[in-house]
């Protein structure tokens, strides 16, 4: 069972002393979603509604547990030694004097969980989350603004959902804003999260246009269609160690006779992450 811990003091629960170290199981969250007053936390409710409505939750592959304070999760970890695979961590706590950064660092140090810092304060705290513990754990930390759907096709909530789905191999339907996308494992993308790389490579408007034409289905055919207009080539060094974005006299002098690949062939052979890296730096080791 994939355990997701959510820490936020805006659950529709009357906070009092006994809540400090309490945890709440999935059944309680379902009850809150059905009957609670979420007027202060619409984005969190929408996220939880989507998790609870997912196939993964209904097939009992996901378990949710909630805490009102970071200290409650720390207490739970210490008592049960049961570590969630994913933690959704709010930054603001109004009813108790919680040292949020200190608790976040303790949670990072005590777990190997992936942690989304999911907060309305993301734009003001992002420069504050620096230092050795963050540098050492970058791959499992991400800061998301609650309800943000401005910069990317994928809202903050879409990204959390995508991350959860990516932990499971089966094909699933998921949401991009108002649109449902059906992801099938294919020879180009291994995980729904890889779609974010396509957005980086191609730009969100271009990708959205292509996805609309494909009826929001991600498959071999869709990817082939998306890249059919992209004329860019890639070049493999003679020793097959490097993938290059450009072919020039200088690059051939340095890397030997270069083998040419179409964008699609390169995507299939080297994978989307390697292609993205090559586009970013002009060269990547393969």
């Amino acid at each position: 069972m994939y355990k997701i811990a959510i820490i936020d003091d805006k659950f529709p629960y009357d906070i009092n002393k006994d809540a400090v170290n309490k945890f709440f199981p999935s059944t309680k969250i379902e009850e809150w979603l059905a009957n609670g007053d979420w007027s202060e936390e619409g984005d969190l409710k929408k996220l939880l509604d989507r998790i609870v409505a997912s196939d993964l939750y209904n097939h009992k592959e996901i378990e949710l547990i909630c805490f009102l304070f970071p200290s409650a999760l720390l207490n739970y970890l210490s008592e049960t030694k049961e570590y969630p695979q994913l933690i959704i961590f709010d930054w603001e706590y109004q009813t108790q004097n919680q040292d949020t950064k200190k608790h976040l660092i303790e949670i990072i140090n005590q777990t190997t969980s992936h942690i989304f810092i999911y907060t309305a304060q993301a734009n003001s705290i992002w420069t504050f989350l620096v230092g050795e513990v963050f540098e050492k754990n970058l791959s499992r930390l991400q800061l998301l603004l609650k309800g943000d759907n401005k910069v990317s096709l994928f809202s903050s909530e879409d990204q959390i959902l995508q991350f959860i789905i990516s932990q499971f191999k089966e094909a699933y339907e998921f949401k991009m804003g108002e649109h449902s996308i059906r992801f099938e494992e294919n020879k180009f993308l291994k995980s729904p999260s890889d779609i974010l790389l396509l957005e980086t490579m191609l730009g969100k408007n271009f990708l959205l246009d292509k996805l609309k034409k494909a009826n929001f289905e991600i498959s071999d055919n869709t990817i082939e269609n998306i890249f059919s207009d992209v004329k860019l080539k890639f070049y493999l060094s003679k020793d097959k160690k490097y993938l290059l974005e450009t072919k020039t006299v200088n690059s051939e002098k340095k890397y030997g006779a270069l083998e040419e690949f179409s964008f699609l062939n390169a995507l299939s052979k080297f994978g989307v992450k390697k292609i993205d890296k090559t586009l970013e730096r002009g060269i990547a080791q393969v």
Partner: protein
Amino acid sequence: MAAPTAQQIQNLGPATMPFGRSKTKTIDSLQRGAEDILYTIENGVYDATNNDEPNDIEKITVEELEFVQEKPNEIVVKKYLWVIRQNDLRIIPERTPNLKRTRKQIVCHTNLTGESEALQGGELYFCVNGNLYINNSSDRFGCREDDALYATHREAVLVYFRSIYQNVFYLYDNEV
């Protein structure tokens, strides 16, 4: 501050918006967290002054220089990003966390510019031998080898850096 001269600006430019020299990407490709600008030295941003170095500098060894291309991820802790703008040179350690980014939760070149123009961008290493090694690796602002202005830009970057720092070299003579 290390503002380029009018002649340097002419040789380094024209200034470009993020991805303005890219074949596939546009400013539309900027992801969450990549468009936010960092301002202060507390955030790791350094405005270069004559032959000066950032605080808490991580210097690369001569031996490690050999592996920069082969194993860039292992030496990322010693890599710095740079951009030249109309009025300054800005430098930041690439290891600086940026947890807002969708992937690779470290800073990128546009965290030094926001959604604004720069003349050039790339990476650099301060070496224990006293040299500064630079390249043009930035998909947002770097000059590109297949661009008609490539040779002019590359030379202009070197001339500009040498007007600030002693002993500046390109990391690889024939680097792509």
